[in-house]
């Protein structure tokens, strides 16, 4: 039940952009860049690739703004475009994919856990130790504040699978935190 006024404003910006309004496009870029770039950087874990994906993403936004329906948030729509582009790049094998089987099966639990890290660093490390799928879902749900249906649309999995994945991601994070002597109650 996202505020309708915001949705209308974003839809109007998309319509203007579709009409070739570069100023409206710049506003879209300014409003969404921070969250989109953050998501892409976490997804691809490579600065060069992240910039390449972002360039392709916003070029696609310019091209396809007429297809934005305004039923959801612009950021959500753009993140979906960015994800598709990133996975296309993964398929081209231009960059190593964190989502490849090799990475998913990597034994993350054997990471060295220095004792001197402060709590914040330990929390960051715990999240980095998650599988790419769990890390992605936690980023989308807990930081990007996407609803389950929105995540479902971006990742192209059923809503129930999103909920299940969130549950398992939280369980995995709790395990990683406990390895770093951070209990659930300490969170």
């Amino acid at each position: 039940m996202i505020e309708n006024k915001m949705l209308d404003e974003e839809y109007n910006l998309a319509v203007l952009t579709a009409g070739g309004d570069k100023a409206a496009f710049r506003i879209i870029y300014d409003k969404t860049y921070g969250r989109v770039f953050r998501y892409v950087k976490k997804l691809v874990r490579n600065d060069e690739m992240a910039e390449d994906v972002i360039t392709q993403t916003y070029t696609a936004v310019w091209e396809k703004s007429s297809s934005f329906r305004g039923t959801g948030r612009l950021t959500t729509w753009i993140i979906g475009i960015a994800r598709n582009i990133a996975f296309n790049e993964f398929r081209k094998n231009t960059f190593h994919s964190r989502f490849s089987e090799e990475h998913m099966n990597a034994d993350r639990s054997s990471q060295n856990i220095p004792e001197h890290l402060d709590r914040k660093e330990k929390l960051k490390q715990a999240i980095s130790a998650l599988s790419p799928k769990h890390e992605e879902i936690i980023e989308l749900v807990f930081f990007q504040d996407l609803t389950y249906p929105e995540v479902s649309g971006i990742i192209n999995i059923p809503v129930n699978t999103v909920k299940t994945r969130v549950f398992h991601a939280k369980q995995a994070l709790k395990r990683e935190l406990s390895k770093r002597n951070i209990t659930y109650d300490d969170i």
Partner: protein
Amino acid sequence: MMTSNNPDYFDLIPEYLQGTLDPETHQKFEQEMETNDSLKIEVEDFSKFRTMYHEIDAHTDQPSDSMFHKISNSIDQLEIKEGIDSKETSQFQSFRLRILEVVSELKDSLTIPWGIAVLQTAVIVLLLLPGTSQTIYKTLGSSPPAISTQTDNAYNIVFKQTTHESEIRVLLLSVGGTIISGPSEEGR
């Protein structure tokens, strides 16, 4: 495995915590939490993780001018490429459109003359068609005297070619008329 007593409300947890539920749904959600411990626990759990995650890493980059410049260049390149690709297509399409225009103009230009020609043909055909005698006599017999001595009205009456003079004279006499001029005094 996560269990849920009421899947609908569990689906709404993210929106509840973001404060984006409409007032009515928000109220119902809070009422549900009062009686549904599972939902309450899940909301607290979700909130904890959300807060922690924001605490760990809430950084987002500011929009970069240099990145926007890169994107603009990419768009310009794309439009140049599309312009080249579409040029050939548009040349063919403009040729096709021109053909259609010429055909349309031809049709329009022929419509009126053809229309007039058809109308004229119809008039000629109608004029050549033998009329009914009733039509001729009906005109004179059924109306008051057509010629008034008080006015200068003139009426052209077309008789059938086979009409005899005597018949014309009888008709004229019946309405008080005479032949005053014509091809001959006899009305031929």
